[in-house]
């Protein structure tokens, strides 16, 4: 395999956009190409993540239309990826595999999503389509509901009073809002308090409204290329040194909801390929779609022992300035926003900018190795990337 690098990254501001999915992706793609000193004619393939364009805008087959909007060569194929919330990370990993194996030299990958174009009942229904339509969805399960069940199981398994767990989960939200307040691309650039989280209305017991990520519009694009070409495009390439991906099917087939097995498998693949351990990771953008999800992820990725990560945010261990791995310095899905098909590329964008030392007030000092973790569906897909700065 050839060494694979990221030359350019970009994202739109997340939130509510008047632009279409195609327009948002074009905005991000043009910035990423500019940063890489590339023109559309240099792109050999487009890997576009989009989950719900069919419902958001009545737009299926989006990749071909994005291809035209950016002006890519006809001979450069355009593919749409869909792996629920892990979509863009999967697209980027596939790009890395094909560049690494020599099929392409330069691929534009990322994602776009316009969730806020749907009202809450429709958005909730379409998100639930990632659950098994025959064996899970008929119950009316929602995505907050899936993680709410995980939270109850966590409290029961580790004998933690549910009110104590709710308080610890609230600290995750507070920490991620603290980070997002320093991120000009974040949907919510303001701090909140533990009490505000606990006073917000219940979405799915025991998760309050402010335990949940928002519905978001946004896009993000990444230029993936060889090490040799990246060094011609930028003096700060970031290298993809490890990747992993695993599949797990419906949650009823993976019923210990405190242990997301596909994450453990995917992370092990990525750590092995990169030749690093969790102790080598300086920062991590991980899948905090709900506050309990961050707790499950810091344990599943090996930063904490199982059952020991629930109070990490409360203890300040995952916050900017911590000596341990800083978790979600962008604000995470919770506060930066979660336009699902774009999320993984935005996580990559944050890690790349951090490893380049370009993150301003939220810069993780001395960051050299970063981890990307994105989870799709009711634990059905997990995709991980390990990135390293140019020495």
């Amino acid at each position, binding site marked *: 395999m050839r060494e694979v690098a990221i030359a350019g990254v970009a994202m739109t501001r997340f939130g509510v956009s008047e632009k279409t999915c195609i327009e948002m992706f074009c905005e991000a793609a043009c910035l990423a190409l500019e940063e890489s000193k590339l023109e559309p004619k240099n792109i050999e393939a487009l890997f576009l993540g989009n989950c719900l364009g069919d419902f958001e805008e009545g737009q299926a087959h989006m990749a071909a239309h994005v291809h035209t909007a950016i002006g890519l060569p006809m001979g450069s194929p355009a593919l749409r990826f869909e792996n629920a919330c892990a979509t863009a990370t999967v697209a980027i990993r596939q790009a890395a595999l094909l560049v690494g194996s020599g099929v392409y030299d330069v691929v534009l990958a990322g994602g776009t999503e316009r969730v806020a174009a749907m009202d809450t009942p429709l958005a909730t229904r379409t998100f639930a389509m990632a659950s098994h339509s025959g064996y899970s969805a*008929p119950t009316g399960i929602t995505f907050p*509901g899936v993680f709410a069940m995980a939270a109850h199981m966590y409290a029961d398994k580790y004998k933690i009073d549910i009110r104590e767990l709710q308080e610890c989960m609230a600290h995750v939200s507070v920490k991620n809002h603290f980070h997002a307040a320093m991120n000009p691309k974040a949907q919510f650039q303001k701090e909140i308090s533990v009490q505000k989280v606990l006073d917000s209305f219940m979405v799915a017991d025991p998760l309050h409204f402010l335990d949940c990520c928002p519905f978001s519009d946004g896009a993000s694009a990444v230029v993936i290329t060889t090490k040799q070409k990246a060094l011609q495009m930028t003096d700060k390439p970031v290298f993809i040194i490890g990747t992993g991906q695993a599949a797990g099917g419906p949650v009823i087939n993976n019923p210990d909801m405190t242990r997301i097995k596909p994450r453990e498998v995917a992370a092990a693949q990525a750590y092995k390929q990169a030749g690093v351990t969790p102790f080598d990771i300086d920062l991590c953008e991980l899948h905090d779609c709900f506050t309990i999800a961050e707790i499950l992820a810091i344990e599943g990725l090996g930063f904490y022992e199982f059952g020991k990560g629930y109070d990490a945010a409360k203890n300040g261990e995952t916050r900017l300035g911590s000596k341990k791995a800083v978790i979600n310095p962008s604000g995470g899905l919770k506060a930066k926003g979660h336009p699902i098909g774009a999320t993984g590329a935005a996580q990559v964008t944050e890690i790349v900018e951090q490893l380049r030392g370009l993150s301003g007030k939220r810069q993780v000092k001395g960051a050299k190795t970063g981890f990307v973790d994105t989870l799709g569906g009711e634990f059905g897909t997990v995709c991980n990337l390990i990135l390293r700065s140019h020495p």
Partner: protein
Amino acid sequence: MIKQPLLFKDYQEGLAKGELLGVFCDKCHNFSFHTSVYCNHCGSTGLSAKPYDTTGVIRTFTVIRVAAEGRNAPFIVALVLGNSGIHMMGNLEGIDPDSASMGLIGKKVKISGKKTLPDRFSPKVEQCLVFSLED
């Protein structure tokens, strides 16, 4: 040719008649997930449809308070470990959702089916599991 032991149509028709069908391995005598063609435990293709025991234990639950379109909240969704060894998701009925607490975890339930609410995206999904607390 490898057979598909349990089609969704047959699972739903069974549930409508009060029969909870699963996929059973004639070789290792374990149940696998409903859609399986190969045994989840031993990899055998010797699978056949067989009724589950209709009792189980609640592993976890939630009260849905913000529902998807076409649903009225609140209602309870629970994950149950059936006595046949398979987990399943269904609606816990017969108790007030506002009274649901951690004490539900570990409680024994009876498992049955009910007709689903109409859903424009899943017109062929007609049955949903229902759990009721055993006395």
